[in-house]
């Protein structure tokens, strides 16, 4: 029989156990929390940001909302001509953007896709000020002086009649506020008067509460010369007549784009889907395959050089092994830059190695070896720098292989070579696996050494990424290249897991 007491006792015991388990869990969480937060901030979020940037493309539609909206329904082909109305929208968009210099950013963004657009936008941003909007301002404010005050415009914007004016005014105001440039003393920009005049003209005959405004302004407006936007834009730069320019703007108006990825794979966006770039513009597939090839080569070189060293170290008495291990680690104590520069000294045309080879007569003075500023240089220097990452896991795995295994093999009749091949080597594979994956992953993303000794033919994809991040400022492309690199590494890791098995990787 189970008494009531014992049930209560059981439950409270259960609760106590639960509580102490919970406390334990919380404590464990507390211990990992700092690292977790650190990784979140310094790793997960930046990678997420990178992935986002590689597809993000809001700038164009944000800065040129009217133009892109209008282009949506256009079928652009070689015979297409930009209609007048398009230039009107472009004028308004550019005028707002030019107020805070945003038009240059859109120009640079579009310039990644089609060279020349950057200067087109910069020029046009400057020239729209001379399109005659100041005449409109003068004429209108002569009639209604209150129009010079921002308060009057606020009132106008509250009304519902002049929709286009209201929207334009609000967009203009928003940009200024974003830029901290807006106050009660701000003067309305000239182009706003053009927009207002246009609105009044098109809605002139319908009766409304604003009839006074219309009565006063309509006569003046009809006397003002009409601004011929298309002509003016084409005068500024006849590229505006090119369907290609408009095609580019249209292709990049959506908020998200696969353009960066296409670019990374030597494709480009065309109006009928992705198309391969012309031969002379292809770059990234070559660099990606070069990066992979060189990383594999470096890994193999490290393995070939490191395996005997690790074997030697692992079979040395401990006190000597420690000494030699320090020698292996010594490179870590000198700066990477210093080591790489040392390789420059050694490998260059007039460098130590060439000098010695010439001095001992192995090569003649005229045929000095090209050891630097090419793939050879990168492979030599990087193999040296990454060698410890191969030796250490190999060493620590070999250390755990008891000498009795090889002895057993020999006592069973195996020659030293057979004993090594069939007994020692298979047991050292986890070390090879760990060392190789370490060296490979480190080298595939290496930057500084290829930059310094790689010249043009020995650089890695990371050098291109760095170029886009810090020089060309095409962050989207840099992010796309980085994301592809990440994906390639993950894919290789997966293949590696299938082939070698990740449980076969041991660091000691």
């Amino acid at each position: 029989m189970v008494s009531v007491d014992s049930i209560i006792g059981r439950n409270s015991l259960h609760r106590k156990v639960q509580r102490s388990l919970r406390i334990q869990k919380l404590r464990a969480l507390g211990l990992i929390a700092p690292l977790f937060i650190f990784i979140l901030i310094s790793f997960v979020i930046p990678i997420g940001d990178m992935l986002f940037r590689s597809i993000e493309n809001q700038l164009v539609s944000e800065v040129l909302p009217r133009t892109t909206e209008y282009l949506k329904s256009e079928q652009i082909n070689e015979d297409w001509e930009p209609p007048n109305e398009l230039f009107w929208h472009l004028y308004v968009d550019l005028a707002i953007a030019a107020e805070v210099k945003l038009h240059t950013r859109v120009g640079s963004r579009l310039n990644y896709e089609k060279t020349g657009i950057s200067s087109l936008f910069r020029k046009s941003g400057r020239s729209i000020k001379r399109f005659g909007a100041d005449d409109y301002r003068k004429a209108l404010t002569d009639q209604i002086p209150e129009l010079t005050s921002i308060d009057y415009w606020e009132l106008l914007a509250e009304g519902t009649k002049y929709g286009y004016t209201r929207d334009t005014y609000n967009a203009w105001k928003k940009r200024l506020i974003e830029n901290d440039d807006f106050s009660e003393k701000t003067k309305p920009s000239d182009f706003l008067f053009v927009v207002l005049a246009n609105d009044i003209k098109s809605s002139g005959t319908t009766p409304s509460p604003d009839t006074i405004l219309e009565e006063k302004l309509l006569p003046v407006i009809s006397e003002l010369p009409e601004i011929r936007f298309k002509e003016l834009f084409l005068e500024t730069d006849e590229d505006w007549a090119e369907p290609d320019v408009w095609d580019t703007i249209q292709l990049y108006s959506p908020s998200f784009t696969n353009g960066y990825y296409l670019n990374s794979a030597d494709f480009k966006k065309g109006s009928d889907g992705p198309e391969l770039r012309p031969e002379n513009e292809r770059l990234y597939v070559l660099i990606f395959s070069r990066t992979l090839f060189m990383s594999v080569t470096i890994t193999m070189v490290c393995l070939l050089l490191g395996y005997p060293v690790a074997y030697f170290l692992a079979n040395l008495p401990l006190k000597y092994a420690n000494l030699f291990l320090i020698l292996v680690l010594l490179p870590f104590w000198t700066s990477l830059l210093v080591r790489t520069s040392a390789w420059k000294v050694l490998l260059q045309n007039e460098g130590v190695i060439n000098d010695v080879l010439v001095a001992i007569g192995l090569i003649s003075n005229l045929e000095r070896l090209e050891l630097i500023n090419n793939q050879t240089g990168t492979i030599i220097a990087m193999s040296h720098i990454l060698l410890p990452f191969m030796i250490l896991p190999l060493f620590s795995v070999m250390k755990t292989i008891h000498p009795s295994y090889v002895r057993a093999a020999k006592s069973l009749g195996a020659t030293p070579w057979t004993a090594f091949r069939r007994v020692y080597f298979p047991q050292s594979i986890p070390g090879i696996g760990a060392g190789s994956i370490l060296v490979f992953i480190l080298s595939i993303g290496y930057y500084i050494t290829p930059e310094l000794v790689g010249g043009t033919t020995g650089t890695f994809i990371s050098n291109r990424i760095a170029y886009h991040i810090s020089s060309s400022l095409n962050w989207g492309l840099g992010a796309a290249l980085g994301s592809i690199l990440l994906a390639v590494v993950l894919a290789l890791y997966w293949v590696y897991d299938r082939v070698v098995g990740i449980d076969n990787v041991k660091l000691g």
Partner: protein
Amino acid sequence: MTDKDNGFVVFSGVQKSYDGKILVVKDLNLSIAKGEFLTMLGPSGSGKTTCLLMLAGFETATQGEILLDSKPINNIPPHKREIGMVFQNYALFPHMTVAENLAFPLQVRSLSKSDQEQKVNHVLDMVQMSDFGNRRPGQLSGGQQQRIALARALVFEPELVLMDEPLGALDKQLREHMQFEIKHLHERLGVTVVYVTHDQTEALTMSDRVAVFNDGIIQQLDAPDKLYEAPNNCFVAQFIGENNTLEGTVESFEGDYANVRLENGQVISALAVNVGKVGEKTLISIRPERVETEAERCPEGAQKITGEVLEFIYMGDVFRTRIRVGSNDEFIVKSRNSPSQQRLQPGEMVTLGCMNKDCRALDYQTVNKEVLT
């Protein structure tokens, strides 16, 4: 040593030093007959493994010669010596299955596939592991791994098998079982076995002869019963079984016997096994079960030793009585729990009795008790 020239394995004046300073093996002369089960017994660090490694060819003798079947083998590499070896950690290849492990020595000898299979199955049967051929060593228990290691050392039918503390990692029960099985296999196959252990019970129960090692020297080489009952020196007496020692000085000799005066003035007659001249110090060794607490129960001619009871320990089938004799207050008497056996009280004075042939006067040397454990 005996039949030196016709021994199957002969160590002749072998010395070994790892560092060029300390001799780990000092002067090893040993002859092992074909089919013999010889055990090297000694405390840890006494050089047993080193001897085995030299025989197997993994270490070279610094001096001296090792003969196998009358041929010097100093310059023959290990893989050509045809010596089976069982390692303390078994050294089963972890990346191969049990069957692959067993086939390994056959493969390197280029046997045909069918021969390999047949021999592997045979040897698996022999160690009663037929169902385990496809397992990895890591999936076997310690005892099973032990059997496979044994099978692997036997599968290529070597004439000589070396075993370095093969049972050291097993628990007591399993160890005793495996001792029996190894002994049994040895009798069945007739191979020569050189066995290394630091466990004296193991050595005594399994071997034809035991070589007791200490400090790189064979202290005594004898059959197990001789070793226990007639130790030649103090180290062997102490190392094998339980032992009482009494310190004294030689007074005179009477035939094979020496009269030894203890520190408290008592004179004891003991077999003069390993003593110097009159006036020199000696240690008398007496086994605890060869002493009677009642002198009257001894046969005619027993001698009497007096002492004071310090402790009485009841152990079921036997009693252990700790007695102070002279300056030794660790003198143990082991008596059978028979109806007539009296139980002594601490503080009582007793007269112990023992035969003088059971007292052995040995070399005077202080033996570090810790070495013996």
